[in-house]
C-alpha cells in the first residue's frame, strides 16, 4: 500500500520533471529561431493576441481599481490617511494587480486560443504538413506568438495601469469624497517610476509564459477533440500557476 502510494508520487514527480524539461527545450529552440521571425506573422499575432484582448483587460482592471479604492478609502479615511489612497492604488496597480490580472486574463483568453489553434493543427496533421513542406513549426508557429506576447503584454499593462488608477480616481472622488488634488498628489508623492517599470518587466515574463505554455500544450495535444480540449484547459491552468509562482520571485527580485 505504502509502496503503491510512493510509486504514484514518483510517477507524478517524474512526469512533472519530464514536462518541465520539454517546456524548457521548446523555449530554448524558440529562442534559437528568433532570427527566423516573419515580420508579417508577428504583426498579425500582435493584433490577434494583444489588441483583441484590450477590452477585457480594461474592464478587469477598471473594476479592480474601483473595488480597491472602495476597500481602502473607507479605512484610510477612518485613520485620517486619505492623502495616501491615490498612492496606494497606483502602486498596487503598477506593481502587482495590473501585471498579474492582465497575465491571468491573457492566459485565459490568449493561452487557450493558442493551445486550441495549434492543438487542432496537430490533430488534423497540419503540423506534419508544415514539416513536409520544409517549414519548421517552431519558427513558423511559436516564434511569432512568443514575440507578440512579450511585446503586447507590457502594452496591455500600461493600459491596465492607467484604467485601473482611473477607476480608483473615479471612486475616490465621486464616492469617497477625496478631492481630485489629494488623490493625484498622493500618486505624485508615493509612486515611483520603478513601480510601473517593475510591473512592465514582470508582464514580459508573463507574456512569455502564456505563449510558450500555450504552444507547448498545442504541440503535444493528444489526438481527437478531447485531446484539444485537455490541451486548452491545461494551457490556462499551467500558465496561471506559473504566473503566480514567478510573480512572487520576480517581486522579490525587483522590489527588495
Amino acid at each position, binding site marked *: 500500500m505504502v509502496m503503491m502510494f510512493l510509486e504514484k508520487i514518483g510517477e507524478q514527480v517524474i512526469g512533472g520533471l519530464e514536462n518541465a524539461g520539454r517546456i524548457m527545450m521548446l523555449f530554448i529552440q524558440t529562442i534559437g529561431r528568433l532570427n527566423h521571425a516573419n515580420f508579417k506573422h508577428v504583426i498579425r499575432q500582435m493584433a490577434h493576441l494583444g489588441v483583441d484582448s484590450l477590452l477585457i483587460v480594461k474592464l478587469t482592471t477598471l473594476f479592480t481599481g474601483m473595488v480597491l479604492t472602495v476597500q481602502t478609502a473607507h479605512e484610510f479615511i477612518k485613520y485620517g490617511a486619505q492623502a495616501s489612497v491615490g498612492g496606494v492604488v497606483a502602486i498596487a496597480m503598477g506593481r502587482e494587480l495590473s501585471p498579474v490580472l492582465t497575465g491571468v486574463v491573457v492566459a485565459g483568453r490568449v493561452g487557450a486560443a493558442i493551445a486550441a*489553434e495549434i492543438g*487542432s*493543427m496537430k490533430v*488534423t*496533421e*497540419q503540423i*506534419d*504538413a508544415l*514539416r*513536409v*513542406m*520544409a*517549414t*519548421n513549426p517552431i519558427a513558423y508557429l511559436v516564434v511569432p506568438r512568443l514575440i507578440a506576447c512579450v511585446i503586447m503584454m507590457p502594452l496591455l499593462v500600461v493600459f491596465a495601469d492607467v484604467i485601473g488608477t482611473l477607476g480608483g480616481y473615479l471612486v475616490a472622488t465621486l464616492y469617497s469624497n477625496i478631492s481630485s488634488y489629494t488623490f493625484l498628489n498622493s500618486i505624485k508623492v508615493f509612486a515611483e517610476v520603478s513601480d510601473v517599470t517593475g510591473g512592465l518587466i514582470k508582464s514580459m515574463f508573463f507574456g512569455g509564459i502564456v505563449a510558450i505554455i500555450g504552444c507547448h500544450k498545442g504541440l503535444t495535444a493528444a489526438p481527437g477533440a478531447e485531446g484539444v480540449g485537455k490541451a486548452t484547459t491545461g494551457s490556462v491552468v499551467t500558465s496561471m500557476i506559473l504566473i503566480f509562482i514567478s510573480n512572487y520571485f520576480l517581486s522579490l527580485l525587483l522590489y527588495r
Partner: protein
Amino acid sequence: MIKLEHVNMSFRGNQILADINLEIAEGETMVIIGPSGSGKSTLLRLMIGLLKPSSGQIWVNGREISGLPEDALNEVRKNMGMVFQYSALFDSMTVGENVAFGLRQHTDKSEQEIADTVEQMLTMVGLAGQQNVMPGELSGGMKKRVSLARAIAINPAIVLYDEPTAGLDPIMSSVIDRLINDTKKMLKVTSVVVTHDMPSAFNVADRIAMIYDGSIIEQGTVDDIRRSDNPIVQQFIHGLLQPDIRERR
C-alpha cells in the same frame, strides 16, 4: 531515388515494421498495399522523415536521411511533396494561400508569378478560380485535389500519397487516379502511393509492394501481384473472407 535497407520501426515495444527492404526508381510509381494497421502510412512517414526508424537506412536522392537533423531534412523535403489522407490543408488560409505556401516559403518568386503558378496548379486539378474559397467549404474530393495542387506547386521530384482515394466515391477516386497519372507524366515525378483501394492501386501502379504485419511479403509489377501465388496477397486483392488473414496476425 528512394531506397530502404533493413528498416525496423518499433513504438513503445511494439514492432510496427520489420526488416523492410524496398527500392523505388526515378519516375516510377510504387504502390504500397496492405490491410489497415499493417504499417503502410508509417513507411510513408519514414520516407519523408516525419518519423525516424529504430534501425536501418533510408536513402532519398542519394542521401541517407534517417540520422539527419530537422534543418538538413528540410533541404531534402524541398524536393518532395505529400498528399495527406485527410488533406491536412491549413484551415486558416484560403485555397490559393494553401497552394502558394511552399512557393512563398522557399522561392523568391514575385506575387504575380506565385498567383500564376497557383492558377496553373488549380487548373491542372480541375479547380480553376477557387483561390479564395476556404478549405472548410470544400468537399472531401476537392480537398484532396487542393492537397495535390499544394504538393506539386513547388515542382518536387517525389510525391507521396497517403490513402489518396480513401473516403471518396468511385468517380472521384478515378479522378484522383487520373491526376496521379497525369502528375507523373507531366512533371516526371517519382510517386509512392499508400492505399488499400485495389482498383486505384492497379490504375496507377508501375510496381506494387504488399505489406503485411509489418513486413513486405510480395513486390512486383501489377501482373506479378495479380498472378501471385501467395494466399494472403490473393485474399487481399480480391477482398475474400477466407482465409481470415486478420486472425493470423
